[in-house]
Every structure is written in C-alpha cells, then in structure tokens.
C-alpha cells in the first residue's frame, strides 16, 4: 500500500502553525495586544479543523493532544487547558462534520463556532485559576470579537491553499 504524504505533512504543518502563532503575536504585539482589544492568533486550530474536512489523518487525537501539550508547556507553562481543549474541538468538529457536506460557507461557520467556543472556554479556565479578572462583557468586546475577526480573516485567505495542499497530499 502506498503511504500518503499527509502522514508527514500534517504534524509538520501543525507545529509550524503553532510556532507561527507565537512569532506573529510577538512581531505584531503592538497591534494584537492593545488597551482596548487583544487578538489570539490560532493558526494551528485552523490546520486541525481543515484536516477534519480535507485530509485523511492517522491518529488525529494523538496529534491534537501533542500540539495542545506543546502549547501548554512552551507558551504558558500552565499544563492542562490546551491539552483538554484541542481534542475537544477536534471531537466537536468531527461531530458537526457528520451533518454537513463541506463547502466554503459550512467550514467557515463550523470554524467560527470552534474559535468562539475555544476562546470562551480558555477565558473561563483563566478566570478559574485567577490569571484574569476581566468581566464577561469586556471579554466579549475586547477579546472574543477581535479574535473571531482576525481568525476568520486568516481563514478566508488560507482556505484554498490549505485545502489544496491537504487534498493533494491525502491522495
């Protein structure tokens, strides 16, 4: 049996996307984290969600846990939040996928739900452990809104390239 290339491309792209999040956040910190708004770049989540629709990945949950743990260890030092959230989002996306045939709009809406839920749950965990005391109202206007806008813009730009890459390497 021929081994498809996605076996190598998927983890590679996943971790590049993860580290790009950190680098972009640092370079554009002046635009991403201001007094009124803060944007959380989630490129790796885009990669995970797109792979559900357009790639045949082996052991998707293993990679979801691996990337979540890496984020926790390397970026925050608080182990746990992404370790739980990334597999959860992957699972939800797979459940939603079973009801729809993928098209640009469908994937966009599912990604919107994923990002919103992910950001909300991550906020909630941080409130629990006392890392922030921002109220729900200012969370929605200050973080959730800009994060959704940024990630959807990235989605619109990268939808076709990622789809093409995944479909090509899944053959």
């Amino acid at each position, binding site marked *: 049996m021929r081994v498809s290339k996605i076996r190598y491309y998927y983890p590679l792209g996943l971790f590049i996307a993860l*580290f790009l999040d950190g680098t*972009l956040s640092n370079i554009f910190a002046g635009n991403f984290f201001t*007094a009124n708004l803060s944007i959380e770049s989630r490129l790796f989540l885009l990669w995970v969600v797109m792979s559900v629709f357009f790639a045949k990945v082996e052991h998707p949950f293993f990679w979801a846990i691996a990337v979540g743990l890496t984020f926790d260890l390397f970026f925050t030092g608080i182990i746990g939040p992404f370790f*739980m959230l990334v597999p959860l989002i992957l699972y939800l996306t797979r459940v939603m996928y079973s009801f729809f045939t993928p098209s640009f709009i469908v994937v966009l809406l599912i990604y919107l739900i994923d990002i919103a839920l992910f950001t909300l749950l991550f906020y909630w965990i*941080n409130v629990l*452990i006392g890392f922030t005391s921002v109220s729900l109202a200012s969370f929605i206007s200050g973080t959730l809104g800009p994060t959704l806008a940024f990630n959807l813009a990235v989605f619109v730009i990268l939808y076709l390239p990622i789809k093409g890459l995944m479909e090509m390497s899944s053959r």
Partner: protein
Amino acid sequence: MQRFFFNKRLIIVLITLIIGFVLVAFSVTVRNNKSTPPIIQQFGNDAAGLVDRVVSYPISAVGNVGGAVEDLLNTYQENQKLKKQVDSLASEKVSNQTIRKENAALKKQLKLNKSLTNYTAVTSYVIARTPSSWQNQIIISKGSLAGVKKNAAVLSDKGLVGRVTEVNKTNSKVELISTTNDDADRFATTIITDDGSVNGLITSYNADTNRLIMGQIDSQKTMKKGDKVITSGMGGNSPQGIYVGTVMKVEKDDYGLASKVEIKPAADLTNLNIVTVAKRTD
C-alpha cells in the same frame, strides 16, 4: 444505569477532564517554586524552543525590514528632536562618569564589594510571545546555561519589563509587568521625590490606561507628577536602581490612609526584540 457506566466515550471525556484539571491545579501551585520546571519539562521546552527559532527566523527578518522602512520615514523628525538632547547628554555623561568613579573609590574604602545596585547583565532576544490575552508572557532565548535565574528582573533598553518565571536550559519565560495574574510576584519600588525616597510595591496594572499601580506606600512624603520610579532592590530578586517609569497621578486609597500612585511604565511592552536579564551578584 448500566449503560451510563459502560459508555466508553463518556468515561474517556471524564478522565480527560479530571487529568486536565489536576494538571492545571498542579502547575499553578508549583509555578513559583524554586525547583520547577522538572528536567523532563525543561527538555521538552528546549526542543520546542529550537524548532520555534527555526520557524520564527524568516518571519522576524521580514518584520525587521518593515520596521526599518518605518524608521526611515521618521528619521528627519527624530533627528531634529535628538539634536537638542545630544548636547545636554554629553555633559551629563561626563558628570556621570565622575560620580561613578568616585562611587567605586568610596566603596573600596568602605570595603563594600557588593551592593544592591550591582548586577550582571544577560542579553537575549525574544523568540515568541504567548498568543493569549490572559498571559502577558514572552519567551526569551537564554536559559540556565547562560546564567538566567528564576525571579530575576528583566529590562528593555528603556526600563523594567518583567520577571523570569520559568528557566529551561536554553530558553526562559518572562512574565511582563502588565500581568494581572493574582499570584505574580510584585516588584518593590522606590519613588524619588524632592524630599527623599518613598518605598512601596507595584500592586496591579490597569490595562485600559496602561498604568502600573503602586501601593503599600510607607510614608507621607509629598510626591508629584513626573517623579521617577526605580526598583528598590528589596525583596531579594531585582537589583536596585532599574528605571520603572514616572509618576502620573497620586491619590489616597479608599480609606484615606496610604496613597495609591499611578505610574506610566517607561518600557514599551508591545515592542520587545532584545531584553536584558539582570542577575543580582550578591
């Protein structure tokens, strides 16, 4: 009932949740311990740091070119402003040198080899920033191999930016002073006023106005807008005399007893490329 307990999927979800929350609780608890992170975690972080450097290198290069173009456009106005400052700077530098020499001589006479102002600097560059609104954290490219210590103060070219929270072999995490984290260690600071110095602690940060709040103030001396704030070196982690910012507003706290001082931080926390870790030598 039978079905509920043998539902495999539910059990997996529950176990994941329990493990996850135990890990969260554990890492929050041991965060400020001297010995964290353990070797395995350090190893993972070092590996991740290595990959991150490879990924971020081309992006940073492009970013730097963008910054260079922007700098070029501002050059003329900047030049005008700087010319005025240069003249006064030269005379200040000379007097500074004289005082430094005198200080060294006096210290020698007193046989005072180490004091709170001494520190060795470890310069490193910033490899990433945590992509999260709730952790104001950056990852820098030097770790315990270069001599970075946990809780050491970190400064940019303009002033204090944060403290080291986690040290790996080849990279470290730095929590910025703009953090609102409840259990972050606070900096002990001094306000230099006209009639002496006033000690206190940085107690919180106001993100809306970009102001540090200094509380726990120990004296009734009058402070005014524009007074300089430096680290006091008390508390054992940061050296004395690192520039924090200037006083913007002084007000009595809710009970009219101590004062609450708003400080404008000197460093720009959203534009960090090179930072210095100040390691105390005593």
